[in-house]
């Protein structure tokens, strides 16, 4: 089992979710995040004092998938989240050793 984590632009969340759903992924966990990278932040001015905001709002998705689906899931996320402009984000995967569904105690692929 793998955990696919994606950090993407917030307004792309719906597209990514739709892509995953049509691929058959049944669930995911979403966190608000802020990204720092090539994409420039913005500046704000309050009574003449200027502040540079370097963090850019992002959403961070975690999707547990079976091993054989990893590449397809990555591709689905990447193509759904892409706008082509800087700051589209990253997708990465880490190996998962165990997954449990809390409600039933099911483990492994059945837990998804």
């Amino acid at each position, binding site marked *: 089992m793998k955990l696919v984590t994606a950090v993407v632009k917030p307004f792309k969340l719906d597209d990514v979710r739709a892509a995953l759903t049509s691929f058959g992924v049944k669930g995911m966990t979403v966190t608000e995040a802020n990204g*720092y990278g090539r994409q420039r932040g913005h500046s*704000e001015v309050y009574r003449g*004092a200027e502040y*540079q*905001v*370097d*963090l850019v709002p992002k959403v961070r998705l975690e999707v547990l998938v079976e091993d054989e689906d990893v590449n397809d899931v990555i591709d689905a996320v990447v193509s759904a989240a892409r706008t082509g402009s800087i700051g589209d984000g990253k997708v990465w995967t880490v190996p998962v050793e165990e997954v449990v569904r809390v409600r039933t105690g099911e483990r492994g692929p059945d837990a998804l």
Partner: protein
Amino acid sequence: MANPQFSSGDTAWLLASSALVLLMTPGLAFFYGGMVRVKSVLNMIMMSFATIGVVSILWVLFGYSLAFKGTNPFIGDLSAVGLHGLLKTDSGTIPELVFSAFQLMFAIITPALISGAIADRVKFGAWVLFVAVWTTIVYFPVAHWVFYFNGGKGGWIGDRMGAFDFAGGTAVHINAGAAGLALALVLGKRVGWRRDPMRPHNLPLVLLGAGMLWFGWFGFNAGSAVAANATAGVAFMNTQVATAAAAMGWIIVEKIRDGHSTTLGVASGAVAGLVAITPACGTITPMASILLGLLAGAVCALAVGLKYRFGFDDSLDVVGVHMVGGFVGTLFIGLFATSVLTGGAKGLFYGGGFTQLGKQAVAAFAVAIYSFVLAYIIGKVIDKTMGFRVSEEDELSGVDLALHAETAYELTMATHTGRSFAGATPVGGSMTISEDRTVTQ
């Protein structure tokens, strides 16, 4: 005071009323501001505050004179430009400057109301220009038509034709609603309308705005008696009960239609009731006001769906609440005006026939059409020249940041740390950012 008619009591009430009506515009700013998404709340608020700024200045320069002087039925004259010569004069039982200040607050809130129709997508400079032009060529004349009484030599709608509009159902609400519709058409729909969620970002703020509006509206309506007398009392009571009834009317419709009564509904219903009772509060009874309120609440609750049917993005329902509510209240007078209060004219249901109803309809449509046409033209001209709408990119990232370089809230301590001080411009010094950073202690 040389004036034997002068009344300190009337003056006291008009001073208080003027303050109350001023408060309505910040109230409106929060009512509207709470309804938009978090990325444009500041711009929404700022449109109202900038309107206060622009209109107050125009009023002193020439607005009061254009609205409340002269003998022409359509427009005032320039005899009181700069409020010249009014420091000691009276207007009836009160100082003329008090009357002028009271009326100024109406001139402010009317254009401010329009901003709700075009939330989230307006260039700030274009808005300021629109307010200046529309107030000058639409509001000042229409106020003259409706509010200027001069013994039969005043405005054509109120003083000459004899249509009733106690506190501005036509001059304020239909006027603003029609202009809002025009601008919603000129600017077009927001990106993602009917697809993306555009829910209110802060409902307590909406309710705060509604509360401020309700409170201030007592000045608006009961102050329009221009005296602390029985008429003011009638207007006050009617305002209260119609508003209450309209709040109930709206949430009853919601309960039946959607299964839930909502907080936004109770606030919206209250505002719809305030709008509808505005023209009628001096000419109908409290019992009729309950009926008007229930009707206005229910009708407006349904009317806000019109935009989905016809496909215009009147973002915060200026049409559905102010134009529709204004029509309901203005026409209702033609049905329920009581001669005890009008001193003569009666509504249809009091045996007055269709005469008054006809006058009411003429008043309502005249204002609606004039305002719509002019607002559309002004809007189009601005759009073709300087542009009225922000870029799609700015709209998506949010006008607060794009136009005002601000964001509304910073409620968590952690994200603070993503910011850094980047310099300030001290008086008389050109301090660069990097210098500034090294100076930190």
